Every structure is written in structure tokens, then in C-alpha cells.
């Protein structure tokens, strides 16, 4: 046998986790990217308010769907005994958790980058000047809501996976988490629509609702992450015997 005894810290697996997530979750990634991009281009073609208001509101929903690959890798690795293998080589559960979280956020960045890039380019190419409120809307709502929702979906999905019996299909975490992950942006929209029906919603009122929603979800994610050491017992990551 070749090779010598190895020593030292276990290597980072973030790169290969990203590659695997892009492969395993390619359906979600392609679906989220294509839908967001088509919508972005279609609304850019209409020009005006439809583009500058609808796109920032809808992108987080497709972004969350597109970032599911990380969770798919985690769920499958637990089922197949890969997490067990990685722990045996010194990779701690918290590192496994964070790799998946970072992977999900990177996939989200791909979806947002492509959709926003395509939509804005098309909009500008048609000779429309980019509205100032569009940039504000994207920076103050689309980006933070997307990242918070994606982190929520990945974190809640991983905890759910570890707390439930391993299973696949539509009633598994992978089947349901996309629906749960899009709850923050959808709930924000619903609140705004309901409040708007009374004629009391204003731009600042919208941002207040959105900020409250994002803060609440972000706190939930941070609390879950801070509790990984206590809640995420190593036994929970093992494949079924």
C-alpha cells in the first residue's frame, strides 16, 4: 500500500459540496434560475413599474427554490452514511452544517445574479433608464430577504432532516422545505396585500413589514445555528442501522 500516515486538520469540503449540490440539486437550480430569468426578461420587456416593483418582490421566491441543492446533499449524505464517514475522519457536525448553509447561499447568488443580470441588461437595452427605487428595492428587500429565506430553508431543513426518520419523496424535508423556505417572502407579500386592501400601506410601511419579517427569520436562523452544538447530537447524523 502506498502513502504515509496522515496528520493534521481535516480538509475543507466546501468546494466539492458546492459542486455536488449543483449536480444533485440541478433540477431546483435550473428551475429557479430559468423561471426567475424568464420572468425578469418578460417584465423588463413591458418596462416601467411592472419591472421595478414586481421583480424585487418575486425574485426571493425563485432564489430559495434554486438553492435547494445544498439541503439535498445533506439529506442524501445522511441516508447513505456519508456524514458518518466524514465524522470518522474528524469533520465536526457543525462544519458539515455550515458547508451546506454556505453552499445554499452560493447557489442563491447564482440564481439572483443570472436573473437580475439578464433582466436589468434587457431593460437597459430597451432604452429604459433604471429607476432609482428599483436599486433601493433590490438592496433593501430582494437581497436580504433572499439570503435570510435561503438560510432559513437550509437550516430548518437540516434540523428537520436530523430529527426525522430518513425518507425520500414529497413528504420528506426535501419535498416540503421549498414550500416552507418561501414562506417569509410570501408571508410578507400577503401581509402587504391584506394591509394594502385597507388603503393604509405605504412604501415605508412595506419596508417596515419586510424588515420585521427578515429580522424575525434571521434571529430564528441565528438561534438555531447557535444551538447546533446542543441540539445537533452526532447520533442524529448517522445513517439508519
Amino acid at each position: 500500500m502506498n502513502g504515509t500516515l496522515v496528520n493534521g486538520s481535516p480538509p475543507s469540503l466546501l468546494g466539492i459540496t458546492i459542486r455536488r449540490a449543483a449536480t444533485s440539486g440541478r433540477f431546483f437550480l435550473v428551475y429557479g434560475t430559468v423561471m426567475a430569468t424568464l420572468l425578469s426578461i418578460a417584465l423588463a420587456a413591458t418596462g416601467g413599474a411592472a419591472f421595478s416593483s414586481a421583480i424585487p418582490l418575486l425574485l426571493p421566491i425563485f432564489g430559495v427554490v434554486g438553492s435547494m441543492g445544498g439541503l439535498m446533499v445533506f439529506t442524501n449524505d445522511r441516508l447513505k452514511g456519508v456524514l458518518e464517514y466524514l465524522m470518522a475522519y474528524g469533520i465536526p457536525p457543525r462544519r458539515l452544517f455550515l458547508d451546506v448553509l454556505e453552499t445554499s447561499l452560493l447557489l442563491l447568488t447564482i440564481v439572483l445574479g443570472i436573473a437580475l443580470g439578464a433582466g436589468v441588461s434587457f431593460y437597459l437595452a430597451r432604452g429604459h433608464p433604471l429607476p432609482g427605487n428599483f436599486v433601493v428595492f433590490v438592496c433593501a428587500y430582494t437581497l436580504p430577504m433572499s439570503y435570510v429565506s435561503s438560510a432559513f430553508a437550509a437550516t430548518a431543513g437540516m434540523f428537520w432532516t436530523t430529527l426525522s426518520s430518513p425518507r425520500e419523496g414529497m413528504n420528506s424535508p426535501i419535498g416540503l422545505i421549498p414550500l416552507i423556505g418561501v414562506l417569509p417572502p410570501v408571508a410578507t407579500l400577503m401581509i402587504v396585500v391584506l394591509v394594502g386592501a385597507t388603503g393604509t400601506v405605504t412604501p415605508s410601511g412595506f419596508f417596515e413589514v419586510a424588515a420585521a419579517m427578515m429580522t424575525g427569520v434571521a434571529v430564528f436562523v441565528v438561534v438555531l445555528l447557535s444551538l447546533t452544538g446542543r441540539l445537533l447530537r452526532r447520533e442524529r447524523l448517522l445513517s439508519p442501522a
Partner: protein
Amino acid sequence: MGTSERPRAEGGISCRAVSSGYLGSQVLREISFQIQDPAVYVVLGPNGAGKTTLFRTLAGILRPYRGEVFIDGFRNDRQEALDRLHYLSHMDGIPNGLRVREALEFYAQVERASPADVDRVLDLLEIREFAGHFLSQLSAGQRKRVSVARVFLRERSIYLLDEPTSNLDPKLAREIRSLILELSREKIVLYSSHNLFEAREIGRYVLAIKGGQLALFDRIENLRGSRFVVGVRVLESSPAPPEGFTREGDYYLRELPGPEAVPALLYDLESKGVKIRELREMNNPLEDLFT
């Protein structure tokens, strides 16, 4: 650094009054043993006895509720200990969505092995022919070969192999046992199996686990009975084995000098056109460990 974290002088595996289990439910109870000599140590026991829990505890995946495990003198919650271990789970441990070569490259990255090591194990386990196939396209046996291949990527001093030959055809299982035997000349190999013939073929020591406790730790030869009788079951389309066998139910029985005579018997039967469905030891003393 506390006393218990200090490297101990002794090498190998030192398991000291270890109790372990899952989410507070105790499976292993006060297990103690010391292993220092290179050899294959077969871990036997009925289903649910705690074999897999023992492997997971030795590998540092499960933390003991009580007691300590030392690997080459380092407590097994330290990276120095884990760097000396190879652990092959009874599950494939094969990442989804990859081709065979990519999966081995994944393992190589985890184990800090080189691309040359990947090429070496592709040949060693005879999996080069499907190196470009997706893992989902492979049979259970082929997947097992990929899984076993990774323990040969890098050299370590202790190997924990949980059912490494399950799902393998007899020929490949024999080849892998041969690799493991070769390995055990210089390394400590803990090996669990439900196949008693296999256990006697490669094991020098046996650790029997019953009800979460270590029921026996001894040299296998000390357990051997005075007679070694094998039973051969043949396919319906096969001719009967030649003379020298006695019939008992579906089995043709024959007494041999010992397990080392089995390969010659197999060769002899195959050369005479006998199509073997099953070959088993009829009076294996290890069977008593399951009752």
C-alpha cells in the same frame, strides 16, 4: 491538556470500560479490551448485539457515556487518533450524484490522498472499467467495491471494517479478504461479519459481543472443534459431488483437515463441473457465539 488527553505509551486500540449508545439509550456496557498486535480481529455477535455501535464508538463518531478509547495512545476524540484510523461503515457511504472516479476523488480529498492513489485503487479493486459510470448505475456489489476501495487510498495503522464483504459475490469477497489478510500483517484490522466461514478464514482473534457486553476475546484457534466438516449444496442442474461426500438433507458433507483446505476443495469441485450453490461449515464453533 488533561491527563486523559496525554498520549499513552501503548499503541493499538485501548478500550477502557466503555459504555455507549444512541441519544441516551445505552447499547454497549462496560466494554474493555486492549489490542496491540497486527492481525484480523473478527467482531461477532447476533443482530442488535452492538457490533456497529462498537465500531462507531471506536471511530470517535459516538462519544462514550463512560470510559475512554485510546488509539495509538491518543484519546479518540482527538484528530491525532482519527488520523490513525480507517472506518468502513456497513452503509456504502457513497456520495450521490457522482461518477465512480469522482467519488474516489472525493474520498481522496477527505483523506488527503493523491490522484495517483485514486488510480491505484481503481486497479486494485478492479473498478477501472466503470470509473466513468454514475454510482446510481452500479449494482450493490459494484458499489461495495467502490466503498471498500477508499480504505486502500491511504495507509493508516488501524482499520475498522464493518461487514466489508456483504453484497459481494464469493470470488470478489475472497479477493477482498485476501487484501485484508495482507494488510493485517502490519496493521490492526477489526472486522465484523455474519459469515462464520469467512470469520474463521481470516480471523486470528474473535471478539464476541452479546447484549452490549464483551462475551469473549480469544484466539479463534482456541475455539475450533476437533473436526472441520463442510456442507456443499449444489444447483439442480449440477452433477452430484464425487465420492468422498456423505449426503445429509440438501447438503453433501465432507470432513477436511481445516479451513485452509476449502479453496482446494472448491477448485476440485469446479474442475469436475459441480455447480455450487452454497458451501458452509457444518459444525462451526463460532455459531455458539450467536446463541
